[in-house]
């Protein structure tokens, strides 16, 4: 009895409560993403030469190593800015989703088809094994997906 009472408010809670919850969740998701992007971008910039060399070792992107080594961390910083500003948050979440999907596809294709696989993700993240890496990335893809849905819901409701 007691347990079902406790669950009750979540099942049939007034929309205000739900909205608050989703707002908090979106906020948390954004914080996680900002932390992830800023952390990896900064560690890429700090070890810029190293990062450039290592992505040059990738058979897929070796020809674009120079431009990618600037574009990727820069993009991560820009997306973080979008996530911080509430008005642009939805765009930020869309962009995070897209970027994480690209990273994940890149890893999946590299791991399943290529022979040598250098890693250049920045900081402690490059110490992960490839399986861990894929799980980690898919987790963030899902986070961004949930973030997009919740953010759309809350903004469309508040505009009504």
């Amino acid at each position: 009895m007691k347990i079902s009472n406790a669950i009750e408010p979540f099942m049939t809670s007034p929309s205000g409560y739900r909205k608050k919850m989703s707002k908090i969740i979106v906020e948390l998701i954004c914080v996680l993403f900002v932390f992830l992007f800023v952390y990896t971008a900064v560690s890429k910039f700090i070890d810029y030469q190293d990062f450039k060399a290592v992505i040059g070792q990738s058979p897929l992107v070796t020809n674009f190593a120079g431009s990618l080594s600037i574009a990727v961390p820069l993009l991560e910083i820009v997306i973080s800015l979008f996530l911080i500003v509430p008005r642009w948050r939805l765009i930020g979440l869309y962009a995070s989703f897209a970027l994480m999907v690209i990273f994940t596809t890149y890893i999946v294709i590299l791991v399943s088809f290529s022979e040598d696989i250098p890693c250049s993700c920045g900081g402690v993240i490059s110490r992960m094994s490839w399986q861990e890496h894929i799980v980690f990335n898919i987790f963030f893809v899902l986070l961004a997906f949930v973030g997009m849905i919740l953010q759309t819901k809350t903004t469309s409701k508040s505009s009504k």
Partner: protein
Amino acid sequence: MKRIGIFSMICILASVCLIGLLYAFRVKPYTAKNGFVRNRTSKAVLLKTYDLKYLSFYFAGSTDNRIYLCNYAAPSRIQTFDIDLNFIDDDTLKIMEPGPYKWDKARTCVDSPYIYMQEGVTPIVFEGRLEDLQMRKTFPKAPYFTGNWNLSPNSMIVKCILGGDRQYVVGKSTQDSPYIRYNKKALTKQIDGIFCCEGNISIDKENNAVVYTYFHRNEFIKMDTNLNIIFKRHTIDTNNIAKIKVAEIPGTHTFKFAAPPKYVNLLSCADNNKLYIISALMADNDVSDNFKKNMIVDVYSLADGNYKMTYFVPKYQRQPIRELRVKNNILYAIYDKSISKFQLNE
């Protein structure tokens, strides 16, 4: 909500297309036409395969009726097989003077009746005898090395990076004065002096030959056991200059490849006045499917350095050969977790 669904689908499709395109146009140096042909080819005949169950085994040495395997992950263990790959024994080396060494870099070498275990970071060399495996320190004045090949209890060939020149050199390290003598002329710098000079040493004991085979250029060097150069010869492909790109990481004194390095020669082994080289390159007349399923072993005469013929040695469950030994036309190959024995017919 619908918009998110559509957006996600487009995102996933677009990235698969993008990365797929990058993959399709990736750098693949090994399957392109390389401007040379292999004329005399033969297939190696598989005689036996033995399941080693673990990764990272390597050849420690062999005698007329024994093969010794060691494992980088278990540096003090040694497994003995007969020459038909029947398992005989699993032993542990007894390190009589243990210490804080870089065991993960240690490599064991069997040169019956002696056995050596060494790593070049400390550097430390242990010597023992096969009958009791009691390993004691030797070579008190050994230089730092990245690889070494034992000739006798009194001498070994080492590959080192010399600080001043920042270049790979080969040297002979001895128990007595002068302890180390480098031959700075043997390896020639092309790009950075280190990565471009990377290679493997193999020793043909019966003929007192020390052979250095470069990884990234089409060259091997035959020397005597005092490292006097006898000749330098080219392998049959056309890569005179190492195709590598190296970047210096500022403030760390470290160097890294900045592009996928192009390998020419992967593994090599000298035996019976012949040099066996696993080539990474497809010849213009090689069939692509054949190249994917086999490792290509080119044979050169160590009498004159001329190309003799090529053997196709099948991969094992698509795994490449990690280690190679040839003894009297019998080829032993270690794959990821197995070892195979092949007959090489002329």
